[in-house]
């Protein structure tokens, strides 16, 4: 252990301990309370064991214990919360309870107040709040517009990476594309956290940055540098103010905190800033040795190895630092000597000095990594040395995550990241998976569980599916997961996507085709056809039903068309239906077959309107005699016959047709069920006339017979039919 170095720091540095304090009582930063975070687990990190599935299990088990003992989960208050603060007991005394239900797809449900004793009536007077409903979101699941942008950007990067990366093939380190994409992801995340100002997202950024610095550093820089860069962003020291306070004085060297500043800058790898401090401090160099020592110090600082070649040059540079330290022992000025020796001890990677000057396990680890030996394999060792001095504060989730990363326990780090932001956790898991960092995690213990990366992506995808606008992104992720769970989730949610436009419908059906979701495709088409019907787009509805061969539904719709027209009078068909009615050859075969009765009725009405009575009567007669005509329509169609068999008109039907119609009437009356249904429907039709007389077309037969009962209408028809037959006989036709 080096005896050199400062024995105390100025208060402005926030109280790093003197070297001696290394051997004193409890150490480490006090546990911080996080307003929106959760205590995680009793960490095994200090042991440095490589936890795989057990680590994940530990987390949930510890959480279980936590929820039993502590129940410290995030709580928010409903907007316009109906229970006054501290008046829960009063509210309960009113025999009220709270109920809540989630919607089929979205993450925002509805809460409401109900009475507890529904069976026996409720005597407690109702207050206005009890007749309200209260929207409530699943915590951490609803996307703001800004967060949606982050999700979209992340997904685009993921797609680009997937296209560029060949999973499973060994990668030449020099051709490793992951660092480039990792840097981009970090930039996307950084931009998002700056836009969103969310504490958890910021913590997720810290974890992500730590992971990428530790394992996905740009090949152009040394990993130790990357880790130090992470620390300097995460916890910048010394602060600009601390530096300015000293360096703007007339003689900075004379300031009590000068050497602490120099050493902190060196410890943080801020070599040029450190060198500039030394140059501009007004250091009194009474003798040539002192001057030479200062020059050597600045030279060493300014030639610190950086970049791709840094690792190779480190040993040589460290030797210079060691020699420099020995050179400093001969200096006459005691203050200068102590300060420069401490600096030299940092630069040569003296662990005692570094840990003594460090304020946290992160700083100690990063500094040891940078100065002692920047071999990546030694990082966990440095971590162990640092946490022996500065325990990890596990109450800060990001700190727990970073500790797991530095310790090399990636699955645990990912599970911690998942508590912060599942989108971030999924994407960094993807990077780890592509770099084969999770291979050891997949073993006999995980046989019954999905790959952890996939599970994270599923969790993220479920959130995407449950937020408007990101459903297709969720699906894209789910398609990339192993096993059947991802597809099952798509299958579960696909029919819940609202069919706002035909473009959405087409996209969904394309997806169904790709994934062979035949049942769901049918359900979606059925739902779309119902929507089209409600929009009076009957032709479109029929076309879509035809596309799935749903003859049952087509038949039902076409009969409903006839029914509607018999009740409400002729209504104009939509463009598609009109085309099919006018040009039957354009009509698909199945629709043509089932639409025939309605088309016949439509033609009848058309000819009637044009005054072509004979043609109209023939269409109506053929419809009345149609063998599969539902009995309920028979009476109403007979009523339509009344104006056509009036003696005031020329004869419209030949005798054979008249007799055939009479025969059909006889058969209909014999079938009690059909007759009853027909009479009921006719009565309903007549009733509709009376209710909406003003809207009725002038030539509607019911205008004249609106006040006649259904049975009398049939009696009248029979009478007129007989008369028409007699007339035909008399006219000799």
């Amino acid at each position, binding site marked *: 252990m080096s005896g050199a170095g400062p024995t105390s720091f100025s208060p402005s540095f926030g109280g790093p301990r003197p070297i001696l304090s290394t051997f004193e009582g409890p150490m480490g930063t006090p546990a911080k309370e996080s307003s929106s975070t959760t205590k995680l687990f009793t960490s095994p990190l200090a042991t440095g064991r490589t936890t795989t599935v057990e680590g994940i299990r530990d987390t949930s088990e510890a959480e279980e214990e936590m929820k039993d003992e502590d129940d410290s989960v995030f709580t928010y208050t409903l907007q316009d919360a109906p229970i006054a603060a501290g008046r829960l007991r009063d509210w*309960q005394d009113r025999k009220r*309870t709270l109920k809540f239900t989630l919607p*089929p797809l979205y993450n925002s449900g509805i809460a409401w107040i109900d*009475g507890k004793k529904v069976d026996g009536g409720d005597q407690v007077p109702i207050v206005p709040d009890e007749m309200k409903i209260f929207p409530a979101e699943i915590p951490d699941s609803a996307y703001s517009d800004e967060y949606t942008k982050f999700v979209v950007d992340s997904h685009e990067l993921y797609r680009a990476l997937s296209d560029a990366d060949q999973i499973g093939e060994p990668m030449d380190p020099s051709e490793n594309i992951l660092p480039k994409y990792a840097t981009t992801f970090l930039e996307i995340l950084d931009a998002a956290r700056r836009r969103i100002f969310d504490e958890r997202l910021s913590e997720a950024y810290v974890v992500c940055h730590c992971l990428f610095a530790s394992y996905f550093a740009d090949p152009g820089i040394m990993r130790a540098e990357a880790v130090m860069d992470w620390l300097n962003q995460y916890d910048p020291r010394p602060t600009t103010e601390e530096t300015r306070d000293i360096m703007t004085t007339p003689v900075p060297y004379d300031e009590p905190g000068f050497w602490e500043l120099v050493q902190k800058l060196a410890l943080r790898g801020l070599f040029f800033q450190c060198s500039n401090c030394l140059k501009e401090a007004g250091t009194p160099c009474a003798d040539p040795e002192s001057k030479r020592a200062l020059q050597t110090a600045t030279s060493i600082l300014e030639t610190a190895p950086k970049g791709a070649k840094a690792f190779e040059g480190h040993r040589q540079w460290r030797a210079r630092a060691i020699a420099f330290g020995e050179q400093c022992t001969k200096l006459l000025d005691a203050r200068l000597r102590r300060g420069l020796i401490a600096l030299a001890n940092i630069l040569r990677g003296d662990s005692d000095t570094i840990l003594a000057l460090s304020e946290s396990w992160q700083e100690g680890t990063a500094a040891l990594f940078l100065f002692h030996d920047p071999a990546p394999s030694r990082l966990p060792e440095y971590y162990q040395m640092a946490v022996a001095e500065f325990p990890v504060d596990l109450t800060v989730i990001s700190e727990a995550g970073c500790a797991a990363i530095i310790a090399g326990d990636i699955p645990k780090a990912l599970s911690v990241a998942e508590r912060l932001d599942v989108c971030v956790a999924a994407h960094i898991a993807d990077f780890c998976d592509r770099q084969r960092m999770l291979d050891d995690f997949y073993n006999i213990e995980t046989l019954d569980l999905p790959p952890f990366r996939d599970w994270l992506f599923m969790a993220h995808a479920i959130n995407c599916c449950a937020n408007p606008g990101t459903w297709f992104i969720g699906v894209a992720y789910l398609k990339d997961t192993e096993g059947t769970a991802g597809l099952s989730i798509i299958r579960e949610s696909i029919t819940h996507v609202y069919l706002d436009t035909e473009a959405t419908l087409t996209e969904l059906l394309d997806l169904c085709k790709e994934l062979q979701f035949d049942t769901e495709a049918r359900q979606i088409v*059925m739902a779309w056809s*119902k929507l089209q019907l409600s929009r009076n787009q009957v032709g479109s509805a029929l076309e879509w039903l035809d596309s799935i061969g749903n003859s049952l539904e087509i038949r*039902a719709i076409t009969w409903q068309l006839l029914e509607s027209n018999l009740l409400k009078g002729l209504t104009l068909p939509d463009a598609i239906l009109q085309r099919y009615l006018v040009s039957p050859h354009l009509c698909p075969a199945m629709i043509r077959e089932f639409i025939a009765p309605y088309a016949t009725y439509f033609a009848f009405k058309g000819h009637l309107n044009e005054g072509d009575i004979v043609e109209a009567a023939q269409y109506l007669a053929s419809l009345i005699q149609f063998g599969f005509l539902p009995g309920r329509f028979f009476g109403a169609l007979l009523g339509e016959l009344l104006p056509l068999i009036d003696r005031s008109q020329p004869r419209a039907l030949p005798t054979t047709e008249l007799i055939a119609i009479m025969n059909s009437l006889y058969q209909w009356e014999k079938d009690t069920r059909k007759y009853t249904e027909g009479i009921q429907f006719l009565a309903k039709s007549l009733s509709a006339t009376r209710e909406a007389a003003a809207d009725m077309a002038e030539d509607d037969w019911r205008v004249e017979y609106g006040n006649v009962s259904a049975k009398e209408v049939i009696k009248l028809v029979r009478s007129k039919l007989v008369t028409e037959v007699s007339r035909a006989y008399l006219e000799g036709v």
Partner: protein
Amino acid sequence: MNAIATGHEDLIHDIAYDHYGRLLATCSSDQFIKLFTRVVPSAEWTLLSSFKAHDANIFSLSFAPPQYGLLLASCSEDQTVRVHSSIDNGHTFAKIATLSDSGGPVHQVAFAKFGGHGLKLACIGADGVVRVYHAADPADLRQWHLAFEKVVDKDGLLSTGVAARDLQGDFAVDWCPSGTVRASWFTYELGIDMDDVELPRVDRLTIAELAVEQFVASSMSKVVVFRKRLNGGIYEYEPTEELPGHTDIVRDVAWASNASVGGRYELIATACKDGWVRIFKLTTRRMGGVPATEYRNGGAGTVSGNSEIGADEDDLGYEVELLDQFDHHKSEVWKVSWNFSGTVLSSSGDDGRVRFWRAAYTGKFVGLGVASAEQGSNDEMDD
């Protein structure tokens, strides 16, 4: 979002979403049903329609799947279930069917959430009888026939099947959302391990699906799974498993989607007057005629199919395991609800709080957060 005044003139007893979550129906003791629509993009709810639907308190609502049009079922203290249809996107509703077989107030109604073989509707009332109605012709939803009825359990019921007046009864029913039982059933049916079968992933998913209709019903403290099984050449519903351990009246049951676990098992949550939220895991197994295993001290454990329910040697059934249970409400729990993937469960009750539970990697459930109806709970750690 702010609270929404519904315009009801009495307590609200239930709400239901349509299949897309774009429509919301509420029902009340004022005998009215009100329909709200979600305004895009503000996501706020605005009143669309309101109609008197029953002649007494309305207890429960359910929307049918959209392939049957906009169809809403309601049930009431007037002992009826009514089916209402809208052909103008919810602006008006017309009653198209009244089902009045119940011998008492009808507490809960639920449309089957899957399509195929016509539309089905389950309900349960104070007579303790669960009934399933079937509209065989989707083109004529005015016609329903009673396809099944059975007393869930006589515990707490008079011999007539009506709940004793001194007991505050509760009854609930919920369908298995997928209408299919997946890979595990296939494995048992054919005696093979799916993992040994080399098939494209989509094929594996498709062939692994065997249509099985099943629902869970509760009557007082009994919770029973009913499943359609082949019996004497015809498929019919049978009580198959009991979810044990409830020490008081079960207020609500909710069957989760099994999608997120790839159909490996089913999850059913219950809300109970004894203060516990329970999550049961149902894993497919051969019943093997094993008698019911004693429930272990009310804690997490495994029970096999209830022998009373009559398991045969070769029947497939569920091994029922209490996966998790929570008493954080410290008071009666009244409602449980799953998200679409079965990964988040909500529970609510007398403590004026909605508690959310999420599935962790291991499949166990952990606390996710709390929404409080009591003012002044923002950003606090809930104790």
